[in-house]
């Protein structure tokens, strides 16, 4: 018994995406931060996950939120995969990818992530300052939790928020990755 070939599966998935038969599609990309899982809904990137996040559970969540017609499709994911790889390897300072934040259920969570648009590459802010900037000056802790639930890390730059007391603070992908991202963006800025 032989398994269907990767080329066959990719052709099938591409046809499914082209015929608009899917609710979401996913692919992987190797980067200096590890092998990332990248999931697109029909409207944009809806989830990026680090390898330790547990793919089966994660795709089940995507199915519950967007629908069960989920396929692995590299060709349709290609522009995003290439942009992420170039950004994380330091070859590009731009990361313009459309995102779908449908996985963020609360209005507050969406406001926190939208607030990150004011923190450009190479700069950082604090949990307290971001909370104040979106009109909830006393919600620094809740802001931290909302950032921790960011479904699209890297593209939505929650790594640019650090504790006022110093250090890099928490990160869904681990402090080491956060430090790496901040150094990458600082270096790019200095150039």
């Amino acid at each position, binding site marked *: *018994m*032989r*398994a*269907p070939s990767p080329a*066959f*599966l990719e*052709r*099938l*998935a591409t*046809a*499914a995406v082209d*015929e608009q*038969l*899917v*609710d979401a599609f*996913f692919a992987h990309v190797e980067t200096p931060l590890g092998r990332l899982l990248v999931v697109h809904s029909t409207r944009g990137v809806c989830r990026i996950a680090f390898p330790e996040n547990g793919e*089966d559970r994660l*795709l*089940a969540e*995507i*199915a*519950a939120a967007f*629908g*069960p*017609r*989920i*396929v*692995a499709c590299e060709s349709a994911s290609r522009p995003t995969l290439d942009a992420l790889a170039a950004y994380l390897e330091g070859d590009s300072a731009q990361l313009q990818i459309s995102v779908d934040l449908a996985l963020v259920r609360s209005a507050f969570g969406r406001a926190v992530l939208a607030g990150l648009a004011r923190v450009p590459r190479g700069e950082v802010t604090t949990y307290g300052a971001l909370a104040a900037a979106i009109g909830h000056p006393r919600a620094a802790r809740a802001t931290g939790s909302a950032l921790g639930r960011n479904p699209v890390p890297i593209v939505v730059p929650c790594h640019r928020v650090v504790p006022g007391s110093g250090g890099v603070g928490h990160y869904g992908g681990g402090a080491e990755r956060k430090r790496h991202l901040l150094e990458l963006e600082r270096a790019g800025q200095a150039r």
Partner: protein
Amino acid sequence: MPEPLPPFWTLVEEHGAALLDHAQRLVGPSDAADVLGDALLRALRAYPGLAHGEHLRAWLYRIVTNVALDQLARDGRRELTSSGALPEAAAHDPGGVEAFTDLIAPLSDGAKAVLTLRYVADLPYAEIAARLGCSPPAARQRASTAIRSLRETLT
């Protein structure tokens, strides 16, 4: 709570090899991938309409079987008409094969497969046996059992 539908791709990964094998037995190695591809796209279209995530393997087998039988029916019609094996009237009556397909529709997938291989694709029992993974006498036996059940459905 009904079992939720799993991401479609996990089904493809779990059952893809077995389904390809199944398609290959029915239509042979050269057409198996095409049949599987058509079947999986058909399955994807119907997938959100399923009420629950149970018996999905059997559901996929059924779709692959149906697509394979359609393919055999098309091939059979082409071959029969081009070889002149069918009487003139039947050759110009593409409904002949469809009528046969309708006729055997109530039978089990296994029975449909053996009858289509025998009477539409017009294969010898040795070839049918190879596709179904059984001996030629067993293939002949399955065909005669299928014809018996067909008679029962007609009476």
